[in-house]
Structure formats: structure tokens, C-alpha cells
């Protein structure tokens, strides 16, 4: 076996593209996740643009109905699985080890594997555009629309197999972060001293690990139906399309919390930092998060009120859904109480965090309105639901993520994003978001169904649709200003280690942090440890002026870069992709993955330190 690892020699260089391909450094993997997800966001944004231009006027024929189906399917699938989830993962990667005072994650190579599987899975799904067999059954792909004779090409195979591959990545990453958070905290960091973002990551990871296997089974059954002649979801042969809905939403509802809990954690970091006072009701926020994570498993059928589950099921799920609004409300009141009497600084991250609260309240309220099943009968499958989901996922998740980008950007790059452009981006995005999605509440109430590619003029939906399409271009402009300010920041002066006077441990080391993070593992005495440290230094008359002093990196033994994660990931993606082309390819993929695992197991996590 030694020969095997010798063939592909361990990479030793730390520069150029190979250093990124073989990296196991959580900070670099975080950057990879972030930039990849941002590129996919541009793609999904363009798909949204096609949708909005098509709907801007009645009886429009810019694109065909079939193409329209592809656009909304891919827009949602990409935004959920290839933008918001990996953007959250990007923060997990960059911030979690720094925030808990660790050198890296528990399994650095597994972490690299998660990223590469994510990338290959996303690429696999996008090959569907090249062969023009694009998934077109919506992001929850209800059966029997996904089955013969309604699905005529391989689009949904791309969708199902792509999601299976992406799911592997998410579960691997979540396993890693659960172990990292439970097992790699710096001395003294008890559970109830962990930053809220770390807590929300832990809860999210547990949800991921438990929810993804369920959709995996659903997707496997779908692939079997489409390729191996089973009839899991085909009514003519006794199958039940409702089983797909149940499997999908048992996963899908926890997934909603997977998308929103990390941004809630980000906002809980930012509000105290710019109110200059600790988070109000820390334990309440933590336990609310835990309760949301548990109750998220008991509400899935509220997506299915109109399929005829009967009054008992509908009543039960109405009640559980209304109950889950309580812990969410608790969080919102705690955030507002954090602001109360604080010395608030309206920096860009703070603006995005405040925008998050405002927009999430709107989305939360419209959510409660379709928690009530009689009311939901009116709203089901209308633009009202489209408005709701965009208030919670755009106004909520993405605003939280942008707050995080502006907050941690100086730590990640060592450069500051311009406040001028940052505020411009915020206001354009805030206004554009409301102009686009607020009218959709009215459109939905006026009966406009979602997922129609055009509508007749007599319905009177033209004006509000045109307004929504104008809003799209305002959002588009905000993204352009964001990219401009990122481009500009490369020329800005290096930033100090702690530009925000923030409470987290990550601010005690230089920006960007050294590869080893902390020269010495920090000792934690309470919540908001860096504020404690700074206050004590201030009181002693020796205020902290710089980051922790650097040490010679060769004295700290770090995990070494490795080729095996990307090789294993290629094998895993090939197993999935092979089903589309030829099973021999899947078999080859299995062999490559196996080879990767063997090479991996035979390679010590850190190379012996014999090289100079």
C-alpha cells in the first residue's frame, strides 16, 4: 500500500492553484465555498432575471412555457442548495474554528472532501444546461410530474443525482462540524459560553445529519422509478405520490431551518458588537434555537394542507406550526432588547442585521398566516407564498449572510469594504427587495398562481408585475455595487486585527489569520471572551493595541495538504453522473472513490516534519 501513496506524492508547495486544490486549511476552504457559492448566486440571479422579464408584461412570449419551468426550477434549486447552504458553510468553515479557539476542524481532509463533492455535484447538475435537458418540475419536484410520461428527458435525473451528490457533501460537512464544536473547544469554553453563531451551527449541523438521509431515500426511490422500473410514486401501479411529498417535506421543513438558523446566529454576533453590549437573554436565544430545531420536525405537513390529509392532520399541523412561531418571536424580542440603550453604530453589517430583523418579521407574519390551514387554502400555490419564501430566504437568510460578509470580510482578507459602497449596496438591496416581493402579496391575494409563465391582461396583474420586475433591477444594481466594492477593496489599506472592537475570539488574532490560527490555545473565562480580555487590559492600564504576536509556523504542526479529498470527491460524483450515461462509469467512479479512501487512510493526517 505504501506504493500507492508514493505514486501520488504528497504536495509540499503552498502557492499557486495546487495549493488551493490540495488545501485542508479551514480558512481557505471557507473562501472556496464562499466564492463558488457567489458565482452560483449570479447564475441563479440571472435565472430570476429571465423570470422577471418574462412576467413584466401580460401575454409575453420572451421564453416558452417549458423554458420558464426550467428557470424557476433551477433558480430555486441553485439558490437553496448551491447558494444559501454553501454560503452558510463558508462561514462555518472560516469562523467556527476561530470562534471556539481551535487550530482547524476535527477532520481537515474530510472538510476538503465536502467542498469538492459540493463543487462536483453542482457542476453535475449544471451539465443539464449543456445537453439542454434541464430539470423542470420545481424545487420540490412533485410526483407524478417527475415520472413518465410527464417527464420526457433526463432533466430530473440530473436533478435527483445532483442533489444526492450535494447531500453527501452536506452530511460529511455537518458530521465534521458537530464533532468540531463538541470536541475542539478551547479550554474553558463551556457550551453556555459558546458564541451564538457556534450554537446555531451546531443545531443546523444536527438537522442536516438527520434530515438529509430522508431526502436521500426519496431521491433514490425517484431514480429507481425513472431508471430501474420501480413504481414507488406511480399511482397506476399502486404507488403513492403523497409518499414523495411526505419524504420531501420531512426533509424540507428542517431544511428551512437549516437555511435560516445560521443567519440568525450571524445576526446574534453582529447586534452586540455594534450595540456595544452583550446579547440580551443569551440562554433564551440558545434554547429558542434548540426548540426550533426540534419542532422543525413536527410541522412538515403544513406544506400539504390542500392535499386532503383530513381535518385532524390539518389541525395538528396548524397548531404545531403556530407554536413554532413562539421561539422565533422570542429571538426577535431578544435582538430588539439587545439594541435597547446600546451605543448603536450604524455600520454596513449592522444595517444588514437590522434589515434582517425587519424583513424576517414580515416573512414570519405571512408565514403565520398560512400556518392556519383554512387561510392557507386561499394562499396555496399563489404568489403570496412566493412573497413569503422570499421574505424569509432573501430578506432573512441572504440579508443575514450579507451582514456576515461585511462583518468578517476584514478578518478574511485583511482589507476593509468601503462603508460608502456598503451602505449604497444595503439601501439598493433593501429597497429593491421590497419593491420586488411586496407586490407579490397582493398578486397572490388577487389569485395569481405561482409557476405560470404568462397571464392574460384581463386579470389585471400587469402593473404589480411590472413593479416587481423593476425591483429586480434595483437588486441587480445592489449586487453590482457589492462586486465593485470587493474589487476596490484590494487597494485599501490593511485593516487592524479588531476593526469593530468585537467580542469574539477570532478578533484577537491578525487579519487575515495565520495558518495556525492561535499561537497558543486561548483560555476562556466567559461569554464574549475578547471583550473580557480587552477590558481587563484596559483596567490594568495596558490596552491591547495589536493582534496576538506571530510565531514561527514551523514550530506548530498542522495537518498537511492532500490530493486524496479531490480524488475521492471525483469518484463520488462519477458514481452519480455515471447513472446518466453508462453504469460502467458509475462502477469506475466507485473504484476511484475506493482508491481515494485507501490512499487517504494510508496517509497520516500530518506529514512527518522532515522537510527543512
Amino acid at each position, binding site marked *: 500500500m505504501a506504493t500507492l501513496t508514493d505514486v501520488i506524492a504528497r504536495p509540499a508547495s503552498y502557492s499557486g492553484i495546487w495549493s488551493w486544490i490540495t488545501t485542508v486549511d479551514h480558512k481557505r476552504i471557507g473562501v472556496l465555498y464562499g466564492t463558488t457559492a457567489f458565482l452560483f448566486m449570479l447564475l441563479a440571479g440571472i435565472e430570476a432575471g429571465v423570470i422577471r422579464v418574462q412576467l413584466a408584461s401580460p401575454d409575453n412570449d420572451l421564453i416558452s412555457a417549458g423554458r420558464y419551468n426550467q428557470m424557476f426550477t433551477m433558480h430555486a434549486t441553485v439558490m437553496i442548495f448551491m447558494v444559501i447552504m454553501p454560503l452558510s458553510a463558508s462561514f462555518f468553515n472560516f469562523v467556527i474554528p476561530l470562534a471556539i479557539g481551535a487550530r482547524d476542524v476535527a477532520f481537515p481532509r474530510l472538510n476538503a472532501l465536502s467542498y469538492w463533492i459540493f463543487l462536483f455535484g453542482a457542476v453535475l447538475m449544471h451539465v443539464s444546461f449543456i445537453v439542454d435537458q434541464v430539470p423542470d418540475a420545481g424545487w420540490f419536484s412533485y410526483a407524478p410530474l417527475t415520472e413518465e410520461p410527464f417527464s420526457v428527458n433526463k432533466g430530473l435525473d440530473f436533478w435527483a443525482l445532483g442533489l444526492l451528490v450535494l447531500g453527501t457533501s452536506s452530511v460529511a460537512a455537518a458530521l465534521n462540524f458537530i464533532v468540531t464544536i463538541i470536541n475542539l473547544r478551547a479550554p474553558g469554553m463551556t457550551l453556555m459560553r459558546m458564541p451564538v453563531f457556534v450554537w446555531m451551527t451546531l443545531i443546523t449541523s444536527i438537522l442536516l445529519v438527520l434530515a438529509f438521509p430522508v431526502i436521500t431515500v426519496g431521491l433514490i426511490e425517484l431514480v429507481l422509478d425513472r431508471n430501474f422500473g420501480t413504481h414507488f410514486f406511480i399511482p397506476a*401501479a399502486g404507488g403513492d405520490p403523497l409518499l414523495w411529498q411526505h419524504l420531501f417535506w420531512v426533509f424540507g421543513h428542517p431544511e428551512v431551518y437549516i437555511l435560516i438558523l445560521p443567519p440568525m446566529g450571524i445576526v446574534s454576533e453582529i447586534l452586540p458588537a455594534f450595540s456595544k453590549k452583550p446579547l440580551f437573554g443569551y440562554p433564551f436565544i440558545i434554547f429558542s434555537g434548540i426548540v426550533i430545531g426540534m419542532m422543525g420536525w413536527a410541522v412538515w405537513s403544513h406544506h400539504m394542507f390542500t392535499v386532503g390529509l383530513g381535518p385532524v392532520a390539518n389541525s395538528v399541523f396548524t397548531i404545531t406550526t403556530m407554536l413554532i412561531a413562539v421561539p422565533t418571536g422570542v429571538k426577535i424580542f431578544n435582538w430588539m432588547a439587545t439594541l435597547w440603550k446600546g451605543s448603536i453604530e450604524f455600520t454596513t453589517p449592522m444595517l444588514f442585521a437590522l434589515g434582517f430583523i425587519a424583513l424576517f418579521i414580515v416573512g414570519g407574519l405571512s408565514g403565520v398566516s398560512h400556518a392556519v390551514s383554512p387561510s392557507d387554502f386561499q394562499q396555496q400555490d399563489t404568489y403570496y407564498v412566493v412573497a413569503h419564501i422570499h421574505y424569509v430566504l432573501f430578506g432573512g437568510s441572504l440579508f443575514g449572510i450579507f451582514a456576515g460578509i461585511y462583518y468578517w470580510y476584514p478578518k478574511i482578507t485583511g482589507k476593509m469594504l468601503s462603508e460608502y459602497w456598503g451602505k449604497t449596496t444595503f439601501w439598493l438591496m433593501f429597497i429593491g427587495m421590497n419593491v420586488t416581493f411586496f407586490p407579490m402579496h397582493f398578486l397572490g391575494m388577487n389569485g395569481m398562481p405561482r409557476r405560470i409563465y404568462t397571464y392574460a391582461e384581463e386579470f389585471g396583474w400587469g402593473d404589480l408585475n411590472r413593479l416587481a420586475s423593476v425591483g429586480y433591477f434595483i437588486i441587480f444594481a445592489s449586487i453590482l455595487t457589492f462586486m465593485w466594492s470587493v474589487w476596490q477593496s484590494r487597494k485599501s489599506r490593511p485593516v487592524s486585527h479588531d476593526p469593530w472592537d468585537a467580542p469574539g475570539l477570532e478578533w484577537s488574532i491578525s487579519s487575515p489569520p495565520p495558518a495556525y490560527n492561535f499561537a497558543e490555545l486561548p483560555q476562556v473565562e466567559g461569554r464574549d471572551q475578547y471583550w473580557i480580555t480587552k477590558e481587563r487590559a484596559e483596567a490594568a492600564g495596558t490596552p491591547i493595541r495589536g493582534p496576538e504576536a506571530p510565531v514561527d509556523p514551523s514550530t506548530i504542526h498542522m495537518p498537511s495538504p492532500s490530493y486524496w479529498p479531490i480524488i475521492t470527491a471525483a469518484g463520488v460524483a462519477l458514481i452519480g453522473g455515471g447513472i446518466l450515461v453508462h453504469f460502467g462509469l458509475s462502477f469506475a467512479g466507485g473504484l476511484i472513490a475506493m482508491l481515494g479512501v485507501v490512499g487517504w487512510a494510508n496517509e497520516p493526517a500530518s506529514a512527518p516534519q522532515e522537510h527543512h
Partner: protein
Amino acid sequence: MAHAPQTTPVADHEYTTTGLSHRKMLMWVFLGSDCLFFGALIATYMVYRGQSLVGPYPNDIIDIPLTTISTFVLLMSSFAMVQALAATTANDQRGIKIWLLATALLGSVFIGFQIYEFNAFKNEGLTLGGNLFGATFFTLTGFHGAHVTLGIIWLLSLYFLSWKGRLGPATALDVELAGLYWHFVDIVWIVIFTLLYLIGGFDLGPSIIPGT
């Protein structure tokens, strides 16, 4: 793995908050995840129990005595696994080799039974596409068999390592992790055997209640 004795690196001599090793915790969380995987497959079977429109139905083909034997073989493999771990912690090199190989062999016998059973069922007309019973049966037991097969490959890799003298008290965790996985897969089989054979095996036709 016990490499790199020349330094005391962070990654190898790990500091952990709980004192539990990272890998053991990873395995437990993974098994929790796998519970949901088999849970969803079993749920599919239960939902479609008695829903097949055409035969063959379970009562026509399920052979409980045969599968009782293979179940016994699989449970004995768990016993061998326990012995393998005990031998590893006691540094009984001969015992390690015997019991690891025994576990892998017993697992292979179980897989042999499964291949025979799948073939026999196919000959009697039960296929993936034929009816819902076939689809749910082959999917659930097939994925269980895939888990056992992976376990056998894992055990044989450990057996290979044992011949290189790489297993002993210092590396007992390597064997223990394989053991955790192996016992989990066995426990899943107990559930499958109960539901698909002992309870569902007597289902006569489209209805769950025999004779109606």
C-alpha cells in the same frame, strides 16, 4: 492511526474537549444519520405493505426458516466482532487475526444467503418493477446488504493490517470503530427481519390482514 512518533503533533495526539476521540464521536453521529436513512426505507416498506396490485405476495415466497439461519449467522458475526476487539485490546495477535477473519467470513456467508435469496425470488417472479412489494423489499434489503458488504471490505482491510502487525492496544480504536458500524448494521437487520419476515412475511395479498 499510530504513525509519526517523531513529534507530538496536534492532529495525532489530539486534545479533545470531552475526552472522547474525534473519530468515535464521528462514528456515533454518522450512525445516528444512518438510522434516519434506514428509517425512511422501512417507512416506505410499511406504507406500501399490502398495497401491491399483483403478486408475488410475501406469503408466496418468503422463506422464514432459510432467513432464520442467515440471521443467526449474522448475529454470530457480531459475537466474533466482540471477540476481535477483546483480542485487540489484549494484544492477542493470533486472536485478532482469527476473529477478524471469522467476522468477515460470517458476514460473507450472510451475503451469500442474500444473493441466493434474491436469485430465488427473481426466479419466482419478484422483481424491482413487478410490484410494490418487490420494489420495497429489494431496495431495503439491498441497501442493508450494501452496508454489510462495505463492512466486510473494512474488516478485510483490518485483517490485512493485522498481518502487518499494525493492530494492538494502541490502535484498538480502529477495530472498535469497525465494530460499532458492524453491530449497528446487525441491529438494523434485526428490525428488518422482524418487520419483513416475521410479521410481513405472512401477508397474503393486496390486503394486510391474511385471508381478506
